[in-house]
């Protein structure tokens, strides 16, 4: 009885402290689960030593060991699977974001490059001037070129000069990128972001984060 109480309190302490340290229920459950497993193994050994018929002792030990091993295996694979599924869902989200953003950026980039190249030589307007002429900024005080609710994207003009135009696309919804410390165009940190650079030599697209 004493050991049941002590272990129960220990399990609660480990669960609560891990949860508040990590804010992760899985981590807390795993840490408390290890305490439970250690207790169960000690308890099984102790049970086998208590005087009882040999047949029953072996039954208890066998069922106990199989249960602990099976539960540990199930627990570990379930943890891996749910973690993998959660990460997969996030990766799918990122791939969708990069696909949509490339499509939107490409449309804008080709429109700009097309308008620039369709000027008869000698070209009167630079690539930056063509961009300014053809673009209506969503907000005149900012660099936001477009806020597309349908595709959940914000497009920013990161740089506009005579030689190049740089556009970046970021999700309206928060989508974590690869690097947590990446500085995004809208001031947030660590979100997914793509960049398109248009020069007279063509369009270069890259996944930034």
């Amino acid at each position: 009885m004493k050991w049941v109480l002590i272990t129960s309190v220990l399990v609660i302490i480990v669960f609560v402290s891990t949860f508040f340290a990590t804010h992760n229920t899985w981590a807390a459950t795993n840490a408390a689960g290890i305490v439970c497993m250690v207790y169960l193994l000690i308890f099984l050994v102790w049970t086998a030593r208590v005087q009882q018929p040999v047949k029953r002792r072996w039954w208890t030990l066998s069922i106990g060991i199989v249960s602990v091993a099976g539960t540990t295996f199930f627990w570990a694979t379930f943890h891996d699977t749910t973690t993998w599924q959660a990460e997969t869902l996030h990766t799918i989200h990122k791939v969708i974001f990069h696909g949509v953003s490339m499509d939107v950026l490409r449309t804008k980039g080709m429109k700009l490059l097309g308008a620039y190249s369709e000027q008869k030589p000698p070209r009167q307007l630079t690539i930056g001037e063509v961009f300014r002429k053809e673009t209506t900024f969503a907000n005149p005080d900012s660099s936001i070129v477009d806020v597309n609710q349908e595709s959940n994207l914000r497009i920013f003009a990161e740089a506009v000069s005579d030689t190049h135009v740089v556009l970046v696309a970021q999700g309206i919804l928060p989508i974590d990128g690869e690097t947590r410390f990446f500085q995004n165009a809208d001031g947030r940190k660590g979100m997914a972001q793509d960049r398109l650079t248009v020069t007279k030599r063509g369009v270069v697209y890259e996944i930034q984060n």
Partner: protein
Amino acid sequence: MRFRIKVPNFEADPLHTFWVAVYAVCFGIAWSLFGTLLVHLTNPGGIYITPLPFIMVGGDALAQALDRFSGKELVVVWGGLQTATVIQLVIYYIVAPTAFVWGLNERALWRQQTGERKFPWKIVLSLGTTATIIVSIVLGSLVPPLIHYRVRVSVMEAQRIQANRDALMWDLNYAALRAQSFYFVDVKDGGGGGRWKNIQRKGNPTLTIDEIAPPEPVVQNVAGKLFPQQPSKFRLEVHTADSLVVYGIAVEDGDNADFANADGQKGKIQFSIGVMPKKIKFTSEN
């Protein structure tokens, strides 16, 4: 008959296996009703109580992933799930096994006693309240892990193929972007000067796949950790000065085993993207 229960023994022994099973069923029903009522009162529509705490936690992790997918900011605070989990851990893996084994030992001793005996309330309570929990732990450790493992392998394989399809579509879009970009760039700057065929340049007068195909699987940069993207093959057909088709052939098999792929293989997944200077058309071919 061989399997008939001897009624006098059965009535005289309140710890007969039959009665232990009856106690277990009664307490099991009471447990489930109590658990359902508790969840209904404290957290209606929220957590699901399952016989194993880690399944409950895993289910919640997936619910959080879906919330994250829909753009919700996740703030994990202590709630019903955490309380239920820690209670389940203590009851399932500490209290119940101990009480059950204690009950079994005491039952054996009680049944050996002779003479006047009081009704064994403590033993009945310890076995009755914990038997269903122990049965669920033992059964839960035998078959479900194997089923779960098989399902997990299948899901991961299916997801790997789907991820490669998605990545190939993405790479084709990227190739289309590079082809369109090439079209609008002057010949002296390394482009086609408004054409993909009969380009006024030294060397090959037609755009080649090497000039537009992704040098490496691009999506691998963002998804490679989870889905090691297989290298796809790309083929280009330039039809006219301002229209072309890029084919992407994956390493996995497609729906139709007899499908003739653009690179001479048979039955592989294939997509194509028709490209014009300001338009694209995507087609899933196999």
